[in-house]
């Protein structure tokens, strides 16, 4: 069992996240983290999914993912040379006595203070999980109020990645906003 990094290009449509998440659930996998966002191509989103499993079982779930019609491409980049990052916001209890010490720790980690209040500071940190975990441990001594983490996003190094789309295919036009009648104007059944 080891952590695997899957990256997927998916159609930017309603319900796609549900299709992907539901597939992991019914095949008996736990998702450690999942991060979704737009890509350079309109109509396509990119997912980075971290999942625990043996090589064979993760390969099985990768192939099952690839069968989903809304999944355009999916690749396990665990063994590739990759850049992986996660972003975390950490709200730390701060008093006038501890504030400068917190700032020192934050500086060492090249993190940023993004909000200051009378009794807390909020730190923004970007890096791999180890870096965020280390900073978290150091800040724990001051008292953690709240943490939000994005989950890992990852990309292979070099020019062409496994998800690179060779040719720009025509994309379906985005749904136009259209007025739908309200429940008052239309009866049910």
């Amino acid at each position: 069992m080891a952590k695997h990094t899957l990256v997927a290009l998916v159609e930017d449509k309603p319900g796609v996240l549900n299709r992907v998440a539901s597939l992991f659930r019914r095949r008996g996998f736990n998702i450690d983290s999942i991060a979704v966002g737009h890509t350079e191509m309109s109509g396509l989103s990119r997912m980075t999914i971290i999942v625990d499993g043996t090589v064979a079982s993760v390969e099985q779930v990768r192939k099952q993912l690839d069968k989903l019609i809304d999944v355009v491409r999916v690749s396990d980049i665990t063994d590739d040379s990759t850049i992986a990052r996660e972003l975390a916001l950490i709200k730390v209890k701060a008093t006038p006595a501890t504030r400068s010490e917190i700032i020192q720790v934050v500086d060492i980690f090249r993190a940023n203070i993004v909000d200051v209040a009378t009794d807390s500071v909020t730190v923004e940190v970007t890096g791999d999980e180890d870096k965020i975990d280390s900073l978290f441990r150091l800040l724990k001594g001051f008292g953690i109020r709240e943490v939000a983490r994005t989950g890992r996003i990852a990309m292979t190094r070099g020019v062409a990645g496994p998800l690179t789309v060779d040719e720009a295919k025509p994309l379906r036009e985005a749904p136009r906003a259209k007025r739908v009648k309200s429940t008052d104007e239309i009866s049910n059944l």
Partner: protein
Amino acid sequence: MKLNGAQILCESLIKEGVDTMFGFPGGAVLPFYDILPEYPQLRHILVRHEQGAAHAADGYARASGKVGVCVATSGPGATNLVTGIAAAYLDSAPMVAITGQVARPFIGKDAFQEIDITGITLPITKHNYLVMRAEDIATVVKEAFHIAREGRPGPVLIDIPRDVFIEEAEFRYPDRLNLRGHRPTIQGHPAQVKKAAKLINEAKRPVIIAGRGVIISGACSQLKELAEKGQIPVVNTLLGLGSFPQSHVLSFGMLGMHGAACANLAVDAADLIIAIGMRFDDRATAKVSGFAPHAQIIHIDIDPAEIGKNIRVDVPIVGDVAQVLAALNKQVTSQSRVDWISQIEEWQREHPSTTIRETESLLPQYVIRQIYETTGGNTIIVTGVGQHQMWSAHYFQYERPNTLISSGGLGPMGFELPAAVGAKVACPEETVWCIAGDGGFQMTIQELATIVQENLAVKIAIINNRFLGMVRQWQQLFYQRRYVATPLSGPDFVKVAEAYGIAALKVTDRLQVIPAIEQAMEHQGPFLIDFVVEPEENVYPMVPPGAALAEIIEEQREEVGAR
């Protein structure tokens, strides 16, 4: 051309070559039904329960190779389809299910007869759609039929809100698809084909396991060429029966939990398994760690996710079975393999798995064998699930593809009657025998009315043992004969049939069997025979759950003679 959503749906279905639908109306699909008289080329067959619509579409698809279409309304109509959609999904039958949905403004409000059917069918469809604009219907229908039939076939569901059926839009049927996420691999990788050919040419004891993929792909002649050229024995999965003529000297029957002993022993002793269009279901492999322990395994399948899912594979080939076999056959050398084949023939003689005891009482095996003898095997057999299904697999010889229609993956009791409706509609010129158990028959018995209304000459044989027989067999063998909830009363099936307007006979004596079957065959129109058989007959051979394929329990016999 401006049309409303319902008209666009009908036009699109016609473009896809649809001429028959199985369905049941309701509030949310009323606008669609309302428009149907404008399209007389679309035949709608009214079922008596939506589960019947889905099974009938499935039976239609399996008998014809075309996409089966079923229609239901929102809420309970849609949920009633679920069992049938799941059955089609697990057996890779091409199907498009169309459901009505509550009008758009009501979605998400728990409105009357609202259910999230796209959510419910997520794990049992290849893909599904909730169509929110009438102008999307044509594209969605085109995609749905493409997805349902291309690659590994399966069901696709289209959910259409009531007001989308009414909304007007410009109709233009798209001539191109834009499905970036659906590109099945058709050609096998040449290097893999070469590796497979080398293994086949070097093997001493190869066995082919042919599944339903061979039938779907239309690869029966390529399979025959491979078997004959390499003199390789062929065994079938349940759903693969018919892919290779069983009268052929190289055919050794079905493998698996209730497989023929010689088929299981051959797989157990093989040094090479060539698995073609099958997915190593647990009912076929028995205990995975004990499956083909001496063999290397070649696995040919169009679905890459099946490779290595259940069984380790040495040479996987992803591609369309017909294409892969055509490439493979060019590289396979002619061989005789006399010793290996005579070894399996010897096992076949030592373990005559399909002989029938001489008894006074009426044996179910005898009934099914006589349907085979009387029809000359020239019929489509549609079964339910359970003992009669296994006997129908054993006591029939399947010579042609799509002549056995049976649910292998999901195993829903009650499949038989509606699936037989679908098969008969698809193949009106063929004789269709529905072989049912008395348990499963009572699950979808209402489709007798569909048969009458559509005047479908389906012949029905109920193997009536007054038990849920397969469950009772497990209770006998593994639960010390504690027959809990398996003794089963039923109606007088002859009276029931007659009440529906179907001619029927009850048979209790073996001497009546052949005349009854002959009478059913001669009768114009549907006919039902209630065969009251020996109640505690078991299906043998059997590999107990958790055991390996070669650990076969056989029927106790006073004398095991030659075949």
